[in-house]
């Protein structure tokens, strides 16, 4: 596991209820969340849900020092026409951000409106997170709800043309502890693309709650930098109404501990949820994708596709669950998690789960880990492709099934280029 020497004396994050925001639209959600954390406690190594990933570095008060790697090529999506919203060490920076002038959505910052009495987000903030506490507690998200002061409040009313790019930059602090809570409501028939990019902070705790109305659509792409020592925990909570569509893709490169939880609740008939990810890491890399999809409606379709490339002692974790509730007939659930282990020191730990209470469903899951296909490698080399190029080609081929989950070809190409860069830097 990534942090090998947990000190028993390590102080854990705690909530001071007197310091909470006690007035305004979010107060009751914060109080509820705070009580939840106080009752349940933050994740502990003995917790079944944290069996493969040690939570201490995420729950301790001290943030480790994390050196920042400047990207040579600037912003990941610099070539796309995006609406830029910049956060520096988790704090919104209006001066570096674009001004949103678009009738298809309303956008505010949590930091600007956290004290007002009434806000549309009052009916959403913390509610999906609260539902996501059962059957498995997710108290780091609860902690986030209680104390968050940064993040976007996005109300999408139509088809948003320009992707909204949340750009997370590092500031001068080596120990920045960033905490963001994004609240997104997408009206019936509306659609938006949200891109999250950049290293966030030395440590990050990000929650995104998304409520999709009938026929609404969210395309979510995330790549949180490549600082090798960074720590991050994130939770996406999504509720899907009928015929809505969620597509979420994460590219994870490097990081001492990255735990991405995605909690999807399909409430309306004929909804589609695709959650996918590609990860590449070496040495101290520990990457955990934990997905929980609940089908509670007819003819829902869900896909979980995760591919991890692990080198030099890196660790990949996947915990994926499909829960089909009684009555959720004609559910089509698919889940695959695969690791390519480029050496014998790396490991992949997977826990695929299906829990089905409806009798007319099609659900499948699979999980594999393996090395580079030696026959394919020799075939490529016999055609003159050098060993390293051939290995990289086969590695990209391995990741292709996950990358294919990205609908937008241009975005997929940008991410593939980023992966190619990562592979080439390691080919020496």
């Amino acid at each position: 596991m990534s942090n090998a020497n947990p000190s028993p004396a390590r102080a854990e994050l705690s909530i001071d209820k007197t310091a909470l925001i006690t007035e305004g639209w979010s107060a009751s959600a914060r109080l509820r969340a705070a009580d939840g954390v106080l009752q349940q406690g933050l994740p502990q190594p003995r917790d079944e849900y944290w069996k493969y990933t040690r939570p201490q570095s995420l729950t301790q008060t001290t943030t480790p020092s994390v050196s920042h790697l400047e990207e040579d090529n600037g912003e990941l999506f610099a070539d796309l026409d995006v609406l830029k919203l910049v956060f520096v060490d988790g704090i919104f920076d209006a001066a570096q951000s674009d001004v949103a002038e678009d009738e298809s959505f309303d956008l505010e910052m949590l930091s600007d409106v956290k004290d007002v009495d009434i806000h549309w987000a009052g009916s959403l903030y913390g509610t999906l997170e609260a539902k996501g506490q059962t059957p498995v507690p997710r108290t780091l998200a609860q902690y986030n709800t209680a104390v968050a002061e940064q993040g976007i409040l996005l109300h999408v009313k139509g088809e948003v043309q320009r992707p909204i790019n949340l750009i997370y930059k590092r500031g001068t602090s080596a120990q920045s502890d960033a905490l963001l809570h994004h609240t997104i409501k997408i009206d019936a028939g509306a659609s938006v693309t949200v891109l999250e990019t950049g290293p966030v902070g030395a440590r990050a705790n990000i929650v995104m709650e998304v409520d999709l109305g009938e026929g609404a659509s969210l395309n979510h792409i995330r790549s949180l930098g490549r600082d090798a020592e960074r720590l991050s925990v994130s939770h996406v909570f999504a509720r899907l109404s009928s015929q809505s569509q969620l597509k979420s893709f994460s590219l994870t490169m490097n990081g001492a501990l990255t735990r991405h939880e995605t909690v999807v609740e399909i409430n309306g008939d004929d909804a589609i949820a695709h959650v996918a990810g590609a990860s590449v890491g070496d040495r101290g890399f520990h990457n955990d994708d934990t997905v929980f999809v609940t089908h509670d409606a007819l003819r829902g379709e869900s896909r979980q596709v995760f591919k991890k490339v692990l080198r030099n002692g890196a660790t990949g974790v996947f915990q994926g669950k499909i829960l089909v509730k009684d009555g959720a007939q004609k559910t089509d659930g698919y889940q695959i998690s695969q690791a390519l282990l480029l050496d014998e020191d790396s490991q992949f730990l997977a826990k695929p789960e299906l829990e089905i209470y409806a009798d007319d469903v099609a659900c499948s899951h699979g999980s594999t880990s393996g090395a580079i296909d030696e026959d394919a490698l020799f075939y490529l080399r016999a055609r003159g492709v050098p060993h390293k190029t051939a290995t990289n080609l086969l590695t990209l081929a391995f990741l292709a099934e996950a990358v294919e989950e990205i609908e937008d070809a241009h975005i997929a190409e940008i991410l593939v280029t980023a992966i190619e860069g990562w592979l080439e830097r390691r080919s020496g």
Partner: protein
Amino acid sequence: MLEIKNLHVKLEEEEKQILKGVDLTVEAGKVHAIMGPNGSGKSTLSYVLSGRDGYEVTDGSASLAGDDILDMEPEERAAAGLFLAFQYPVEIPGVGNMTFLRTAVNAQRKARGQEEMSATEFLKVVRAKAKDLKIDADMLKRPVNVGFSGGEKKRNEILQMAMLEPRMCILDETDSGLDVDAMKLVAQGVNALRDEGRGFLVITHYQRLLDHIKPDVVHIMADGRIIKTGGPELALEVENNGYVDLLEGVAG
């Protein structure tokens, strides 16, 4: 072009000698065929020459146009002009056939200090050569050999050969799994590449491929050695009488 002297090869992981002193010289412009029963070491010879792992050369040498190839990496041998048409072409999901071909062509060019082929030039050349082999555009777009029929895989091997323009081509049982029409098509592809600067070594069980790719020299291999060398008539002898007489002749 290809000069093999007293080549002894054993399996790396067990004490099993496969090649027990192979001597063979393929001149530029010539087509040599190797025939032999199962287990005679024909495929091992092709793998050892192309640099596959798992074999240990215990004695002897092999050189291509004067350069020792046995110490080279597989990709270096390819760049030096050696090509092996695989008996079982490998399926590579996720790698497009076109990407594969372009990467291979340009990697070899780069290794030889030549300029890389531009995307448009490459496309033009590959389309023309694919057409000759009746390989349609769809096959070029699909992942390497994935879902290809036996015949398509072998035609794809010949397309790679045509694109890479090697000096020395080894065909390892290219006729296996082919129907008569597919075999003709493959043979046409090979014959189109016959050239005074290029050598061929055609490994086969059966004479029928040699009806289409006419050899200059035929060798019979058995128990890790070449036991008899002759003209095309030797292949016919095998076709008519099998290997038994030849093997007995040697033993006696």
